[in-house]
């Protein structure tokens, strides 16, 4: 089984989760996550070698929509909740690295 989660891993996970944690939080979460994960290890009592993973409960497939254009929100409503905007754009601090995945 995986080794017990430690503070370094908690920091790494926090970074992946885009959560800035205080030192106190790192410590607190490490203990709590460790307790929860210890409990979760209970699953290993079960032999699941020949069990299929079940991601969807329902035997549904092939749900589609037709390729029809519907009205969009409009720029004002789109930007209505924006914390910061610049004209018709959402505004964010300068992006220096290019890490677009698409």
């Amino acid at each position, binding site marked *: 089984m995986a080794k017990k989660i430690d503070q370094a891993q908690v920091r790494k996970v926090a970074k992946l989760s885009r959560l800035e944690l205080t030192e106190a939080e790192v410590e607190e979460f490490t203990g709590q996550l460790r307790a929860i994960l210890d409990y979760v290890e209970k699953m290993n009592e079960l032999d699941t070698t020949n069990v299929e993973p079940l991601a969807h409960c329902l035997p549904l497939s092939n749900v589609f929509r037709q390729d029809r254009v519907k009205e969009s929100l409009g720029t004002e409503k789109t930007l209505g*909740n924006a*914390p910061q905007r610049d004209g018709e754009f959402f505004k964010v601090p300068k992006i220096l690295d290019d890490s677009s995945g698409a």
Partner: protein
Amino acid sequence: MVTEELSARQLRDRIAAGQITSVEAAEAVFKRIEELEPVIGAYISTYHDRALETAADVDRRLIAGEPVGRLAGVPVAVKDNMCTTFGATTCASKILENFHAPYNATVVEKLLAADAVIVGKTNMDEFAMGSSTENSGLKQTVNPWDTTRVPGGSSGGSAAAVAARLCFAALGSDTGGSIRQPAGFCGVVGLKPTYGRVSRFGLVAYGSSLDQIGPVTRTVADSALMMNVIAGHDPADSTSVDEAAAPVCDYLEKLNEPLKKLKIAIVPEFGAGADEQVQKAMTEAIDVYKKLGAQIVEIDMPHLDYAIAAYYIIATAEASSNLARYDGVHYGHRSEKATDYVEVYSKSRAEAFGKEVKRRIMLGTYALSSGYYDAYYLKALKVRNLIRGDFTSAFEKCDCIMMPVSPTVAFKIGEKIDDPLQMYLSDIYTIAANLAGVPGISVPCGFDQNNLPIGLQILAPAFAEDKLLAIARMFEKETDWHTKMPAIIT
């Protein structure tokens, strides 16, 4: 007159008959909100003027003889994780405190189309993560039966509002018991429909493969009435089931259909973990069914013990992804301290998410991360399949399964807040239904020595809500638990 005894269905019928006006009903509810809400804290927002306008419109249409909807004039509440174009949709989170949705959730559209009068939006655990509503980032809700205790959660606001008569019915959402458990703690009826029965469009996602909207009401009939309004296929939700595959029926009409040779399964080993008083109430409830001629079968569901473990991996994994969008870029809270765009994310989220939300995001991220996926997430999906298998074989032997809603009655505020694992373990009886996607209902079945409500949970096969409601109604007819009222309102 608008009395405390009146159920939603009775109110609707009297409004339709002209005995009570919608405006009277709405005013009575707002009067009670004025008196009790400062103590109960069930609502994040209320909509007095809007509600009275709707009510007046219903009254006008009734006088004019125009057709009205199935909930015409009935004051209802909506959990604050369902989007509305009026007011904010906060999920009880600081990150969405000022978020104004530009669209209505499908269930909200359906309530409005049924001419329900939406009174307000109820408090909850932040992003529906919790079992006590203590994780609300915005306010505290207390249990109307004992204001030092939690109302349960995450739909604690909805359950407390219904129990304290701050509305006639409410909508909640249930990912691991979030409708049934607070209903049980507050002595009201709560139904989690089959996954796919009610549209999730507009329900702010927590665990997408588990979330389901359902009613919290005073009576079983009221839940049937609410289901008549909210159930059904929605083309905007790919996981909503086609009505050809699973037809929606008139749940109210089928409520009193006699159920012959009812076979009820109990899971003795599994139920044994509950408090003594809870077990006693359960035994008495089963006896009621026995007297009605039901046959009781004892079954084994060997994988239920692993439900909490699987649930807290699957739900948090999905949540870690669902909540990634709250980043301070397009809507919601943005940190003023951020100096670059990465800090916009990490500081905004750190400032505005509560501890439990952070904990679950962390847990879910960990379970999906490289090197841990197979051990946690994939394993949990396999365990989920085993749990569903338990239900499939169980329903070959019975019509429904009965067990407690929770191992305890409502606990004290603050009692479990510092021990997340203990809090998670209190969901032991409700979680499996979400993993298997089957419907479950919580009905009042007694009180403990401190006059705190106890709930009976009934689980039925997928899409058998009609049967589930009818079975619950059999019990309700024979008992008067649902007529009891918390002292605070009398």
